[in-house]
């Protein structure tokens, strides 16, 4: 099982995502933004960071990268993609996921251990969780405030496409406390918090994040 991890200029959590992929038992393959070659990987992770410095809008410049054009085409055919934090922002800017990630309501960068509740375990990236399961994983961003119009929100809710919600006080003003969503098909998932930083009790608050990475292995084996 080969999982690609994309590096854009300014990507920060690529090595961490690769580490999580390997903890889960897959091979991490490094992909470069400037090439459209997916190197025959079985799935792709778009990791966190400040690609292009978050200039213009988070993810906006990266969404136009050559690698993204290959990912967009593949994703439309069911290819699994997980976007974490900046990766989620890139997916939204590439219109693979609806809505947009905007400035946190209190205007500050926020790094904290965040409780989430899993609401959809039918996606390729969440099948290892139970619906209603609470998990604890780090969150760190300045623009994690999920925003969309009413029609989109209605569609997400009615189709069960919210995969995870914040538990407790809404940390950043996201609509309906949304932390992560999926596309209709369940192959593309975007998540603001960082599961790759919760794979080991030595460096993270829990091991809950690993399940995102073992889920994709399950999905591919089936």
């Amino acid at each position, binding site marked *: 099982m080969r999982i690609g991890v994309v590096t854009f200029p300014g990507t920060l959590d690529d090595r961490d995502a690769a580490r999580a992929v390997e903890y889960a038992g897959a091979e991490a393959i490094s992909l470069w933004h400037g090439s459209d070659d997916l190197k025959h990987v079985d799935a792709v992770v778009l990791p966190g960071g400040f690609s292009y410095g978050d200039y213009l809008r988070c993810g*906006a410049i990266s969404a136009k990268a050559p690698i993204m054009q290959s990912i967009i085409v593949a994703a439309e055919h069911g290819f699994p993609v997980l976007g974490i934090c900046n990766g989620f922002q890139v997916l939204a800017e590439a219109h693979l996921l609806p*809505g947009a990630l*905007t*400035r946190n309501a209190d205007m500050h960068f926020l790094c904290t251990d965040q409780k989430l509740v899993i609401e959809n375990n039918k996606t390729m990236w969440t099948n290892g969780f139970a619906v209603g399961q609470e998990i604890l994983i780090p969150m760190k961003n300045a623009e994690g*405030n999920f*925003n969309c119009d009413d029609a989109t929100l209605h569609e997400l809710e009615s189709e069960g496409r919210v995969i995870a919600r914040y538990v407790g006080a809404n940390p950043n003003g996201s609509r309906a406390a949304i932390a992560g969503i999926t596309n209709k098909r369940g192959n593309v998932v975007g998540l603001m918090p960082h599961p790759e930083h919760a794979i080991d009790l030595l460096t993270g608050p829990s091991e809950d994040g690993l399940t995102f990475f073992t889920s994709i292995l399950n999905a591919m084996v089936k």
Partner: protein
Amino acid sequence: MPKIIVEVMLKPEILDPQGQAVAAALPRLGFTFAQSVRQGKRFEIEVAGEPTPAMLADAERAAEEFLANTVIESFVVKVEQ
């Protein structure tokens, strides 16, 4: 020299935390004139010579595809002296 200006604002139905933060801060600083504030972006684009209709058409497309995220933002393209 005239420039192409692109103004990008969040659509009215989208929550604007930055504008709200500014609106909330103004009265604390003693400014009471504002009823509401929206914060957007302004791009000043220098071109070679006077902006031509072709350049403006290009700027329009660049705004649509790139400078604004039309899921949440609207934009205006104009020329300013």
